């Protein structure tokens, strides 16, 4: 499913190795991301799935070095097109942000400037990365709005963010993100705040855009079902670690980690059944107060005594990884 890439595959587009991110609290460091590996080839869509607090968003924000105050990368490597991201200076980082790497967020209203018409925001973004005159930039902005399926793009250039609906705002965000011809799009819960029907439209749009321009997408969501719609590969995170990763079909057909399995069962389905919904008992662990052993063990339906002693290692079978003692290897 990877888009037609001619570059040698030895250097991935994005490569995260052993990423640790921690919040400093006095002398203690609470790790919210504890050793995550992620690899994205050009044109590929990788889904990053997890509950709130699993570290999925922090992992994505680390790529752009947009961590919340107090958080810092304590170890690990992030490289983009073979270039070490953690070595980059501010100027180079800014060139990448909104340049070769585009981002869209859950809440487009906070990501757009409320006081400036969307057209201006688009032309500013275009001219920051491309040598275009005001008129050419405006034409390009109009083109982009049409591209993301906004009706009457000419009129909408003058609209302020609050005058647009949630779905329209997310389309503007996507237009902003693709305005600089990025090779990677980081989408952090882009449809969570939207209605189902609008969500379907936006998912469709992201899928169309990334095919048309061969953009790799790191798609972050808590919704496994949604991720399955668009991703080639999926990484499931729990308590700051990747607990399972692999091809989306394999992961759904035969999940190797009990967490993934239980998560898939929780997805409410329109299959005509009624009665109690499937749940995962208990609560996700509190970061900084992880139980000994596998952090999922207290909620796991298949936990064995050894699970609450040592954290299980990653087990590989081909390209499918699961961090579980019970996973086949």
């Amino acid at each position: 499913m990877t888009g037609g890439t001619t570059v040698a595959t030895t250097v991935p587009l994005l490569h995260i190795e052993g990423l640790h991110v921690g919040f400093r609290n006095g002398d203690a460091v609470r790790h919210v991301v504890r050793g995550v590996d992620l690899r994205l080839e050009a044109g590929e869509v990788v889904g990053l799935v997890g509950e709130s607090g699993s570290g999925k968003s922090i992992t994505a924000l680390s790529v752009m070095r947009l961590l919340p105050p107090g958080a810092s990368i304590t170890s690990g490597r992030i490289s983009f097109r073979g270039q070490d991201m953690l070595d980059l200076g501010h100027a180079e980082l800014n060139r990448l942000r909104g340049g070769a790497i585009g981002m869209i967020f859950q809440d487009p209203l906070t990501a757009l400037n409320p006081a400036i018409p969307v057209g201006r925001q688009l032309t500013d973004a275009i001219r920051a990365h491309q040598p275009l005159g005001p008129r050419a930039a405006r034409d390009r902005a109009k083109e982009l709005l049409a591209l993301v399926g906004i009706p009457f793009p000419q009129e909408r250039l003058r609209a302020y963010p609050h005058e647009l609906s949630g779905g329209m705002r997310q389309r503007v965000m996507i237009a902003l993100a693709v305005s600089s011809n990025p090779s990677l799009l980081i989408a952090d819960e882009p449809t969570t705040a939207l209605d189902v029907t609008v969500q379907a439209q936006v998912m469709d749009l992201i899928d169309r855009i990334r095919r048309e321009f061969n953009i790799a997408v790191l798609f972050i969501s808590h919704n496994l079902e949604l991720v399955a719609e668009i991703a080639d590969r999926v990484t499931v995170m729990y308590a700051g670690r990747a607990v399972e990763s692999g091809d989306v079909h394999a992961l759904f057909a035969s999940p190797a980690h009990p967490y993934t399995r239980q998560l898939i069962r929780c997805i409410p389905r329109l299959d005509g059944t009624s009665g109690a919904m499937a749940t995962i008992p208990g609560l996700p662990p509190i970061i900084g107060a992880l139980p000994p052993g596998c952090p999922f063990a207290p909620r796991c339906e298949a936990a064995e005594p050894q699970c609450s002693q040592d954290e299980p290692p990653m087990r590989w079978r081909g390209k499918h990884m699961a961090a579980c003692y019970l996973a086949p290897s």
Partner: protein
Amino acid sequence: MKTDAAAQMTLHDVRKTYRLRRGLFDRLRGRVKDVNAVDGVSLPIRRGAILGLVGESGCGKSTLARMIVGLTPASGGDILWGGKRLRDLHGAAWREYRSGVQMVFQDTHSSLNPRKRIRTILGEALAAHGVPRAGRQERIIALLRQVGIDPVFLGRYPHELSGGQRQRIGIARALAMEPSLLVADEPVSSLDVSLQGQIINLLRELNASLGLTIVLISHDLAVVARVCDQVAVMYGGRIVEIGDPGTVLSAPSHPYTQALLDAVPRGLQRRARKVLPVETGDDPAGCRFQRRCAHAFATCREQSPALLAVSADHAAACHMRQPVKREQVPEVTA
């Protein structure tokens, strides 16, 4: 005006109109615009049942919820409680309504006072319900047990709890008033998938054990289909389809319901998901859904379709479902 004996509450042509505030010039010229957030909803809420209310944001479902619980007055129509209009309730009858109809909110952060401990939040609800001070502690612990929260959390502040736990406290606070009707406005949409089921199951248990009538507002059709006894689909401030979830969701009679079903993520079956055209923002004469409807014809642009029975326990507001007998059948009785 008919009331249904089996109905806990009856909505009769309930409306809510907001006047859009515009600039000074528009006001001087007398140009004001009214928006019908809820545009004539008639519906009996059956005693002891779970009614699912489904629709997109802006369809009026939250406004309807706030009118049911009495947080927002209706601008037209009647809401009947115990056979009486809400605005005619006084004294004991009003107090019975006030404690008898409670609400669970979507945003678990803003629904609990950040400066109050769990003990205080539940204690003041009991105080408002007239529980004497001596019996409160015991009752608080019983409430926590009922919603599955360990009493060690009594001394905590809301922000020290997880989203799921806060939602349970929100439910306990509502239960403190011993309600007979609970309106749950998107109670799980801000929660993680693994916890959504826990809250929905809790509501189901309360419905079964206490006979609590529940109005469950959700945009998630799958959740509604699973736990509701009756589902109402709203579009543009009106109910466009209502019936038992099995029928409505397996054989929808309104194109909008079909569109909602088509939009549900299908995981690996990617192609199965269909996309509804973009909303246009204005409300046209005739059927509200016409601009986005693939089947719209001339009548749809002229007349607003009435909610008419399709079968015994199923009604839809669509011109394609022209009934044989042209009588008004807003009575979707049990």
